[in-house]
């Protein structure tokens, strides 16, 4: 089998069985990067030299029995809002253009302990605010299936890298769908874990109560293995949970007999593209054929999810991004008159449009006289939405949902109408509001040959149920074509 077509687990197995070397895997990635990166622009920074050095280290470590895990030797890409010591972490923003942290994220420590190889930092929407990776200050990433289209966002670089074979797997972050939606657009698989499962230490915050790092991979098994590596309690993050971790992976059989799936009928309302609807319905049918019990039910809070989400996310963002002020790190405007002018010029020049928009909205909804009407109201709505999900999970093991009402839009189409872009997050944001785990996996292709994904949403701590169901679905569906095989040749 061609090396770049292997899954991460297959690659590592071959490495550990000494059939190939760690450097072979690294080389296959960089070969692909040389071939495709010019058009895709998935990366903001590449660590080629370091990666080969590290490959030698890991090769020795495997021989010495230090790295025995199922992902030892696997090259991985990291979203550029996750700090790696000594490497630029820009969040795709001018304001952090030259920021090199002297500390690193807990997840990076864990990748290193698992014997994985860091190959670069991936492009994203600036500070993870966006759904297309077009708000990056350092250029857009294109969709490996069709480079005239966006990869989705905000983890567009991570998902495009995996889809293009420029990485075996990647880390993304998901605040309102930022792993799941680009995974769907790029035909790869991504997991948004239960809030608190993966440490946020070293993840540059967008909205602290919603952010969660998660795996992106070629299939569910790969993602489950990576989740195993990065999950776990971290005392540096107060919101990190002391949950007993299962072994993430297939727990039993491959059919879905006895499992109950619910589909919110509101999700099927108007506005969904034909190709998305057809693929979604076909996926439901396949799940039924596997023995699952699929049923439509009503989620009455659906229409309140986006308003509540955008109020909460932008409020937290406005506060989280106050620290970027030109004093301690990052960009400082060249000319200014006095302190407050320095703040204003630095921030006005340093942040992009979308970020400024959300900071302003967030500042407004928290400001005196409006807090109760907007922010507090949103927290109450969150409570009600959460309750409705809790009730749904009393009846269903898994909630099925599309990921987005459409497949990957063309470059330059989305930013014209931000509200319409926000509305595209209708199926993904409730998961973050309610701290739920969800997996996004490809269901098929639309009429234009663009991937269509769908989501399985579980109750808190229900990752393994999702992994089991998704794996069963994958087995029945068969290997999803790669962008190279199935997409428009680039």
């Amino acid at each position, binding site marked *: 089998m061609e090396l770049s077509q292997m899954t991460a687990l297959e690659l590592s197995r071959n490495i550990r069985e000494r059939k190939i070397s760690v450097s072979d895997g690294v080389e296959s990635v960089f070969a692909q990067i040389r071939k495709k990166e010019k058009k895709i622009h998935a990366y903001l920074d590449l660590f080629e030299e370091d990666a080969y050095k590290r490959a030698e280290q890991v090769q020795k470590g495997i021989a010495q029995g230090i790295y025995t895990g199922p992902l030892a030797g696997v090259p991985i890409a990291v979203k550029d809002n*996750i*700090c790696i010591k000594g490497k630029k*972490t820009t*969040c795709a923003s001018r304001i*952090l253009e030259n*920021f090199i*942290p*002297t*500390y690193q*994220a807990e997840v990076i420590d864990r990748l290193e302990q698992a014997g994985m190889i860091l190959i670069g930092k991936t492009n994203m929407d600036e500070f993870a605010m966006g759904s297309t990776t077009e708000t990056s200050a350092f250029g857009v990433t294109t969709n490996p299936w069709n480079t005239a289209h966006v990869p989705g966002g905000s983890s567009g670089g991570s998902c495009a890298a995996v889809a293009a074979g420029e990485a075996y797997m990647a880390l993304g972050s998901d605040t309102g769908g930022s792993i799941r939606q680009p995974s769907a657009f790029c035909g790869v698989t991504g997991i948004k874990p239960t809030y608190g499962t993966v440490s*946020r*230490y*070293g*993840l*540059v*915050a967008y*909205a*602290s*109560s919603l952010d969660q790092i998660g795996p992106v991979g070629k299939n569910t098994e790969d993602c489950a293995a990576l989740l195993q590596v990065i999950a776990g309690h971290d*005392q*540096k*993050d*107060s*919101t990190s949970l002391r949950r007993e971790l299962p072994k993430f992976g297939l727990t039993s059989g491959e059919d879905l007999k006895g499992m109950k799936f619910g589909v919110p009928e509101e999700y099927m309302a108007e506005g969904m593209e034909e190709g998305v609807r057809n693929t979604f319905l076909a996926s439901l049918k396949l799940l039924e054929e596997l023995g699952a019990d699929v049923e439509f039910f009503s989620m009455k809070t659906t229409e309140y999810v986006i308003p509540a989400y955008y109020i909460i996310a932008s*409020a*937290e963002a*406005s*506060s989280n991004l*106050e*620290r*970027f*002020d030109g*004093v*301690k*790190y990052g960009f400082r405007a060249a000319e200014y008159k006095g*302190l*407050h002018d320095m*703040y204003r010029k630095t921030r006005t020049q340093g942040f992009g449009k979308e970020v400024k928009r959300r900071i302003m909205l967030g*500042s407004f909804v*928290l*400001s*005196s006289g409006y*807090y109760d009407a907007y*922010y507090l109201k949103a927290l109450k709505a969150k409570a009600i939405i959460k309750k409705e999900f809790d009730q749904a999970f009393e009846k269903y093991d898994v909630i099925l949902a599309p990921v987005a009402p459409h497949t990957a839009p063309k470059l330059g189409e989305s930013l014209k109408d931000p509200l319409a872009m926000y509305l595209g997050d209708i199926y993904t944001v409730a998961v973050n509001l309610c701290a739920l785990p969800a997996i996004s996996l490809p269901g098929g292709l639309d009429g234009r040959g663009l991937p269509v994904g769908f989501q399985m949403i579980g109750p808190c701590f229900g990752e393994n149920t999702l992994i089991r169901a998704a794996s069963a679905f994958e087995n029945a569906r068969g290997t999803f074509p790669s962008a190279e095989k199935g997409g428009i040749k680039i």
Partner: protein
Amino acid sequence: MKQYETVIGLEVHIELATKTKIFCGCSTEFGGEPNTHTCPVCAGMPGALPVLNRQVVEFALKAGIAANCQINQLCRFDRKNYFYPDNPQNYQISQLYLPVCHDGWIEIETSAGKKKIRIHEMHMEEDAGKLIHDEWEDCSLVDYNRSGVPLIEIVSEPDMRSAEEVISYLDKLRCMMQYLGVSDCKLQEGSMRADVNLSVCEAGSGVWGTRTEMKNLNSFKAITRAIEAERERQIELLEMGKPVIQETRRWDDNKESSRAMRSKEDARDYRYFPDPDLPPVHISDEWIQRIRNTQPELREEKQQRYQDELGLSDYDARVLTESAHLAALFEKTAELSQNPKKTAAWFMGEVLRLIKEYGTEPEKVCFSPKHLARLICMVEEKKVSPANAKKVFEHIFDEDTDPEAFVREHGLGIVQDADLLQRVLQKVLAENPGPLSELLGGKEKVFGFFVGQMMRELKGTASPEAVREALMEEIKKNRR
């Protein structure tokens, strides 16, 4: 002129005596080289996250319980957002909606008698960094060593009416916190800071005036002066028919005047909201009970006990309990010497005398109680004379000297040697034949002269009683 009443409420910030900062493992030690006690968390680096120091909650609860507060058993941290370089995140983690303690009171005593001052709330928060103005370059420099040092902010109700009450309240708080071990409360080092909210109103009108907030008050004296000045300023405005503007004013102690701090860019809209990085704090009944059970004896109780159990006077008990540190030293010494009254006399006399003489603070006194206790016993056992004991104590106070060794090495001990006493006696008698005959002739006054001569000869190492006894014996012998 109309009669005016001054209405004062205080916001007191107290730095807690923890080893580390409120949300990171950096040292809180005072006075380090700039930015040497900082880390990604307290320097506001992207991706860094706060983790709450348990001891901060413990201290806040101790303070709240001592001040008769109600406890919010579910309390939470909120972010207070404002741009200023002393705060690396540009938000301060504080508590607004659910502060740890609320609705308490403490009792103060002034010349007018006792009075309860109500406490509106007490909350936990982080301190800001230090900004210094660079004279040479017209810029400011930021040091984040203090950034993240834990504080409790104690907000009183506007129950005070004079500077005297304010000082009494602050002194009471300071004493209470020191007794609790919660803070050293040093105004000069900024570990206790008070902002004064003041308004004036026409006496008896019941209509409250507009208040101002005064900051940068670094001593009790400055507070008193600032209160007087602000009261006068506000009355003057009212007399001229001008309104008092609600504002924050900065006190300049050199100029003895204040000036408004607000500028156009200081929009005072803090946009408080619950900090999503910090889960709520749950305070169980057991936790509160444990703190109640282990709460140290506070000043009032101690004062009473010194009178009841140790038989000290009201005055002595009051003076000895002024400083928690000194009181602890006293108690330990009294316990070791088994003589509370004598120990109290030593503290009231020599210890306080030396503190005053050296111009030091009671908190800095650091001799070992066992050394003073031993000295007290040595006097009782007549091993050293009271006069020499005072000299020995100066060495204990300065260098924590072992009195036993010191007395031995310097030959200050009282002579138990009867032969030596006899030899000195005979020498003194032989050298003073005139006074001797006067003495033998019945002139009692000369007795004192011989005692003095002998004491000088013995360099104070004999007890006056022993000298007197030997002399008496000699006279009897000669008269016989």
